[in-house]
């Protein structure tokens, strides 16, 4: 049908003008990660909980696992629709029923991760307010942030991205400054022992690795923009691998710098004694105002992290609504802002209910909300990534689709082995992560909860296969479900006006 023409294509030029390069994708993925929250809120806690100094090595191992995973993941993303959601990979790789199971786990884990951050946020805000001579309970501060995130969530995602980008740049600058200062004021020189494999053993290894994984969440974002990338084959892969590399550098450098500043022998005790160790060090080395700057930056960083997880949860719920796997109203957009408004509001309501419930029951925001919920969500997300890695292997086992052996067989298989090993260790050492005794009920409860969710999701998927085959056909296609489920049975329409 196409007509031969010698004229240059104006259409292709206009379409190419809006395509995204590696740096643009990197911007989106890095804004989905909030490194100061991970370092100030997570690394110091990891030193205290694990009682080990192998955290930089833990980040290195996880970065290597995720790099291996990314090779197959980004390759598969070129061949499927809705390539921004892990459950879509699972649906296309293993099957639609496991896909629905994964979607339920994913939505719950992302939502729980977002809600957990309100505990840290409320507590940090309470501390900052106290420095200013103001007295406000943690839950009041959390509710203010909740309202802000709820409002931003119903706006266009690009507005959020601009806010997140500015916060990220300031965050990275502060982290690098603090890390450089720590190395410049090292207690016993650069502690090379921290990178020794012997530092990552015992009961706490799994706990450290599970927490390390949560710091990288957001690395998967470039695939969301795959169709808008300049070169879908290279741009997305480069951006994903660069995200893992940049985050790994920041996490390893900053966690190593804390060990250098305090000393390998003292860092665990120091972290137990002072949860704000990173800012205390900055205050001692750079001057007291820098500790306050750090705490304020942590506040904005946690808010940005909560906004980022809010967007991800809303995106999952929206895609499920569009597929009609979840209620269809979740797939509604706001006409004015084109945001997934119904899904965003749903996530906001759920998080608001949890904050109010925690406040009403008088539960501890740090232990019962932040630690318990974020670590539990971390296990769920780790299981999700590991299952996605299996899906990549299965997908390419059927057909390599012209891709290389490394990208379709070797790297994905290595990623599966590595991630399942990390998941096994994490579940085994989960009691350390929660800070409870081995054999307690809670560490067993969380994996059971996620397994239960997966079973319920699978049962729902099986029902859809039997009772609603049109919906079943669209599972895993997200925004493009309409293209798959579009039926074609004319029943007669009067022609013309």
């Amino acid at each position, binding site marked *: 049908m196409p007509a031969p023409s010698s004229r240059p294509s104006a259409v292709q030029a206009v379409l190419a003008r809006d395509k995204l390069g590696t740096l643009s994708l990197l911007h989106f993925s890095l804004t989905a990660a909030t490194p100061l929250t991970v370092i100030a809120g997570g690394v110091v806690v990891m030193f205290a909980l694990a009682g080990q100094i192998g955290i930089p090595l833990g980040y290195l191992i996880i970065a290597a696992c995720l790099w291996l995973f990314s090779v197959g993941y980004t390759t598969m993303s070129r061949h499927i629709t809705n390539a*921004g959601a892990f459950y879509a990979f699972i649906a296309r790789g293993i099957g639609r029923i496991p896909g629905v199971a994964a979607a339920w786990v994913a939505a719950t884990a992302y939502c729980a991760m977002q809600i957990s951050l309100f505990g840290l946020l409320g507590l940090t805000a309470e501390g900052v307010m106290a420095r200013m001579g103001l007295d406000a309970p943690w839950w009041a501060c959390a509710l203010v942030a909740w309202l802000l995130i709820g409002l931003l969530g119903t706006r266009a995602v690009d507005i*959020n991205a601009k806010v997140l980008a500015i916060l990220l740049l300031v965050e990275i600058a502060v982290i690098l400054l603090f890390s450089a200062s720590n190395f410049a004021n090292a207690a016993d020189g650069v502690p090379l022992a921290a990178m020794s494999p012997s530092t990552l053993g015992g009961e706490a290894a799994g706990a450290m690795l599970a927490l390390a994984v949560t710091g990288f969440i957001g690395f998967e974002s470039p695939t969301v923009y795959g169709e808008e990338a300049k070169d879908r084959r290279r741009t997305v892969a480069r951006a994903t691998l660069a995200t893992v590399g940049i985050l790994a550098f920041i996490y390893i450098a900053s966690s190593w710098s804390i060990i250098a500043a305090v000393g390998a022998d003292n860092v665990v005790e120091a972290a137990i004694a002072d949860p704000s160790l990173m800012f205390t060090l900055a205050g001692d080395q750079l001057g007291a105002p820098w500790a306050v700057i750090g705490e304020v930056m942590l506040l904005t960083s946690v808010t940005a992290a909560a906004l980022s997880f809010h967007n991800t949860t809303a995106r999952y719920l929206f895609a499920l609504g569009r597929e009609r796997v979840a209620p269809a109203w979740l797939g509604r*957009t706001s006409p*004015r802002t084109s945001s997934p408004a119904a899904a965003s509001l749903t996530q906001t309501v759920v998080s608001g209910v949890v904050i109010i419930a925690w406040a009403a029951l008088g539960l501890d925001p740090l232990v019962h909300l932040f630690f318990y919920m974020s670590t539990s969500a971390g296990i769920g997300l780790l299981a999700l990534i590991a299952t996605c890695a299996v899906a990549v292997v299965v997908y390419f086992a059927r057909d390599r689709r012209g891709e290389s052996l490394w990208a379709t067989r070797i790297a994905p298989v290595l990623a599966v082995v590595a991630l399942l090993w990390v998941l096994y260790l994490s579940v085994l050492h989960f009691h350390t992560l929660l800070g409870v005794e081995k054999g307690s009920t809670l560490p067993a409860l969380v994996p059971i909860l996620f397994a239960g969710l997966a079973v319920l999701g699978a049962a729902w998927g099986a029902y859809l296969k039997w009772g609603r085959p049109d919906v079943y056909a669209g599972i895993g296609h997200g925004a*493009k479900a309409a*293209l798959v489920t579009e039926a074609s049975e004319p029943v007669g329409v009067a022609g013309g006006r």
Partner: protein
Amino acid sequence: MPDAPSTRLVYDTLLITSLDDVYKPATSTRVTGLGIGAALLAELVLSQHLTVWANKGVDLLCFDERFRPPSDSLALWLVEHVRAERTSLSVRDWLEFLSAADVYTKTAEHMVMLGIMVRREYRSRWRQRVEVGYEPADALIANAVFSRLRRHLSTSEPSISVEDAFLLALTEAVGLAKPLYHQFPSGARVYAGQRRQALPAPLRAVLAHLAATVADIAITGGR
């Protein structure tokens, strides 16, 4: 309210998507462009200047080989672009192109010439420069299109035009389902769904791509 004289799908789409009132918000600029683009494609499919051709799972837009130029300059502009392409592009690409090529302004200028819209110049408060906007010449006529669609839903008319069946589905696809079905029983959605299913396959394909593109904007933020 009396029906406005039937005009064109693109004009009706512009009035539905770009104008807001107390009952219905306007859609975002990009979604408005996509909606008008889908309507323009639908017009040309109905007039048999263009067709949608499914090839290896991709819906491609092709021009009819028995080419005869459309009489309308807006339609001619698009058909010339389709002809100029060495290979057929997907419906999604054409929707993206039409939105990026500001099909809204082109359509609005047409409507100005016909006296349906009025061109207004105003000074931007923030940028302090003259900007151009378009307003309906008659608010009642502008609102009549949406009212006509709601009347179809309220009476569940068994036989409506292809254009109105397309507009019903388009209104839902651009995210205006809530005002469209406001205070109607669930039967209204079933009715609209049946009208959509009854549309010719190429129009359904255009609508499905429109819905998918709008959903993608919700996920990616439209950057």
